[in-house]
């Protein structure tokens, strides 16, 4: 967002210069006469600067932790930043576009592995978002009407979401162990579905394991949002459709789902962004040594930066990733808006 960042400092500067005025009109120190004179002179401005003063702490923090780092991140993608320059990163030599050229050179090793990681991340995102959404919608649907046990079941369903990420993923790590894990015990010794114990955390299986863990963690959020969306559907819509003879099934497809469109619009975008950026699930599940089949982009960039110690590549890759996310969002939002408007 280059446009936004340029306007940001203005607000800070504007708020900073007016700071003394705020002190004098709030503090009880100065004499009454003094204060009333100040009030007179600055009444107009005072009303104007209040919102900026209220925003000041948030703006400063956003600048320090989000905006400035992002600008620096983009700048790093144009320099040769290796470990030797880390203490004096201002002196690192420029690289021009070479970091980008190497990152998108799909015949070279760096580019090929980046492309591979991108494909894996896309597949992972589609699988995880689709399953999380479907499970969430179906669960919200069957819990839509009051019945015995509804409250406790709903609370129980939300536990994976409330659980700290690392705790939840560590449990799965234990479950997916080849020799001592619960999954193989269940599949091999209890259900006799497979004869020799598969490795769930190695090879291609690692991809599915990561996806299942991510779905387990994420579907309750879809459930939560869809439930809230269902509550806002007016009851008379259902009454009207049941007068027309629609049963539970028909109502779901012809009333509930179309009415959920505004919620789904936001929900799917959030799920997409979170899943595409996912770092935590593979990082904890594989104890920091992620197999190639679960090499999501965040992990890929992380290991390129902090294990290979070449930050220029890492930065160039994260900028490319950001551009991709911006592109998808820019295409998705107008499309989703148009579709939802045509319905309502």
């Amino acid at each position, binding site marked *: 967002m280059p446009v936004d960042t340029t306007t940001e400092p203005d607000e800070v500067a504007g708020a900073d210069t007016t700071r003394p005025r705020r002190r004098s009109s709030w503090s009880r120190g100065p004499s009454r006469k003094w204060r009333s004179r100040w009030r007179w002179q600055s009444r107009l401005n005072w009303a104007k600067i209040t919102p900026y003063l209220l925003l000041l*702490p948030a703006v400063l923090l956003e600048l320090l932790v989000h905006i400035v*780092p992002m600008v620096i*991140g983009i700048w790093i993608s144009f320099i040769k930043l290796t470990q030797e320059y880390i203490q004096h990163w201002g002196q690192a030599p420029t690289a021009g576009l070479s970091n980008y050229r190497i990152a998108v050179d799909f015949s070279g090793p760096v580019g090929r592995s980046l492309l591979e990681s991108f494909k894996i991340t896309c597949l992972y995102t589609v699988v995880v978002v689709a399953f999380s959404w479907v499970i969430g919608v179906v669960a919200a649907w069957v819990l839509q009407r009051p019945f015995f046990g509804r409250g406790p079941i709903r609370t129980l369903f939300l536990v994976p979401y409330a659980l*700290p990420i690392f705790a939840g993923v560590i*449990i799965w790590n234990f479950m997916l162990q080849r020799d001592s894990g619960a999954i193989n015990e269940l599949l091999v010794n209890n259900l006799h579905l497979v004869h020799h114990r598969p490795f769930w955390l190695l090879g291609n299986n690692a991809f599915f394991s990561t996806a299942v863990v991510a779905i387990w963690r994420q579907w309750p959020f879809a459930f939560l949002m869809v439930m809230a969306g269902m509550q806002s559907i007016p009851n008379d819509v259902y009454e009207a459709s049941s007068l027309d003879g629609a049963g539970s099934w028909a109502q779901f497809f012809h009333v509930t789902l179309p009415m959920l469109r505004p*919620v789904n619009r936001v929900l799917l975008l959030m799920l997409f962004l979170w899943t595409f950026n996912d770092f935590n699930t593979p990082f904890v599940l594989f104890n920091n040594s992620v197999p190639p089949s679960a090499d999501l982009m965040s992990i890929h960039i992380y290991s390129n930066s902090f294990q290979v110690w070449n930050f220029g590549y890492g930065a160039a890759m994260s900028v490319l990733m*950001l551009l991709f996310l911006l592109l998808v969002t820019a295409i998705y939002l107008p499309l989703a808006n148009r579709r939802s408007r045509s319905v309502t």
Partner: protein
Amino acid sequence: MSRESTSFRVFRWVVIVLIGLFTLLPLYIMLISSFKPLSDVSSGASFRWWPSHLTIRPYFDMWNTIPLATYFVNSIIVCTVATVFSVIVAIFAAYAVSRYNFRGRRVFTTTVLSTQMFPGILFLLPLFLIFVSIHNTTGLQLYQTRTGLIITYLTFVLPFSIWMLAGYLEGIPRELDEAARVDGATALGVLFRVVLPAARPGVIAVAVYAFMTSWGEILFASVMTNGSSETLAIGLQGYSTQLGVYWNQVMAAALLVSLPIVAAFMLLQRYVIAGLTSGAVK
């Protein structure tokens, strides 16, 4: 939907049982394994659905295998301080956004919200470098300390907190503010005496969200901390040694670090859900 067909009722319970198994299986395994003796979980022993004998030893041993208490204290300090400050900062910002019409309002809200979509990995290294520079120029050490992590978390939860809280404040009638203004209250007076008491559920929701998010954060904690400032999210990985993993202790620790968060979420469920979903449903 006056009647539900029998087929729908059957379908409902099939769905509930299936999803319930998927959801609860890991939770059951965490609970039951935390009461197992080490021989039940050491490598070579296959998984047991019930311990050979129940023991609470893991709950004592887990404190000695890794410096769990240190991690716990770090997590509590970092998350509490970050939550308190983020709530305060978010209240001011949300109040400005919901009650004032000023130049740059849209720019502020869109910028802040769009930072939510950026990959965390993009900020990680630059933020680290900024902290290194601050250390080099002022001597203030922000990396590998709790302070740096607090500042990071505090800001990370801000966008969503401001958004949630602003949505909540929109729902509080402006007539209340105006009445107080007529009585001579200042902007801050209105905020603290009128708006905030009415927005308490929203504030609670933001606080729970901020605490939960900070408690579970891994990416920045993995780079910004070292031995003495490590939080639970990183420290818990220390249970895996070359010889094998003390899975019973890991499960006991996982249960312990989850309990306060899950309990808080359950107790304040109503507020949190309303807060989380208010923006999307509007």
